[in-house]
């Protein structure tokens, strides 16, 4: 049940980010100055942490989505759904640790 709640919550969060992300990227069609100014506003530690949270949500939604596909299409999927959830959480951690080391050192590394 909690994986289902998590899948819905992360899905909605990602969707609203996507709406904003297409709008900010569309500024490339306005002018280089407009795009670079708005993207520049994202380049601070608070937004850097927000990006880390967003990626955490995306990675969970991605791996849990693959688990849902396994439960739906693999013969033994429903039987092992609980073990698959542990697999999702393990893969999430294995993906997030190197990502966070790299991303946060870029964000907080100063430039």
């Amino acid at each position, binding site marked *: 049940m909690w994986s289902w709640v998590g899948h819905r919550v992360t899905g909605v969060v*990602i969707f609203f980010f*996507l709406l904003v992300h*297409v709008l900010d990227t569309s500024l490339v069609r306005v002018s*280089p100055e407009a795009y670079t100014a708005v993207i520049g506003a994202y*380049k601070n530690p608070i937004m850097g942490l927000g*990006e880390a949270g967003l990626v955490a949500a995306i990675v969970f939604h*991605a791996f849990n989505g693959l688990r849902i*596909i396994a439960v739906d299409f693999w013969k033994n999927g429903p039987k092992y759904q609980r073990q698959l959830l542990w697999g999702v959480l393990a893969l999430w951690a294995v993906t997030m640790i190197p990502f966070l080391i790299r991303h946060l050192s870029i964000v907080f590394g100063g430039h």
Partner: protein
Amino acid sequence: MSANTIASPRSGGIKYNRNKGSGSNFEMAAWLFMRLSGVVLVVLIFGHLFVNLMVGEGIHAIDFGFVAGKWASPFWQVWDLAMLWLAMLHGTNGVRTIINDYAERDGTRMTLKTVLYIASAVIIVLGTLVIFTFDPCPAGAVIDLPSFCPAP
């Protein structure tokens, strides 16, 4: 599971008012689309995040020239176009499902879904136009141009 259980949406007052014999496979097509687009989106979005956040200087490198350099290549145009359409349709269908589950009044449900569909259509059309009408070396621009633009 027994202590903290969230009831399934629409499970109160059991009454199955399913559409009988509407003859449409739309819901099954939508269900299948979520799984197929989901697999493709894992590849597209993980690639997008890796190239934009992990390679080189990561997020510090992102400016107009970075985007212009990527979209100078048809490979990234197609990649981003596929990502835009699949992610928007996947997300719109997901939010549609959530609205259907929790907005119980007919009027509320219709209003929310109308707003959702208009917002999604605007974003898909806008994003598609931007990818196809993008000019990496706009006249009069001076900052952050990609290196292949002629000197102003």
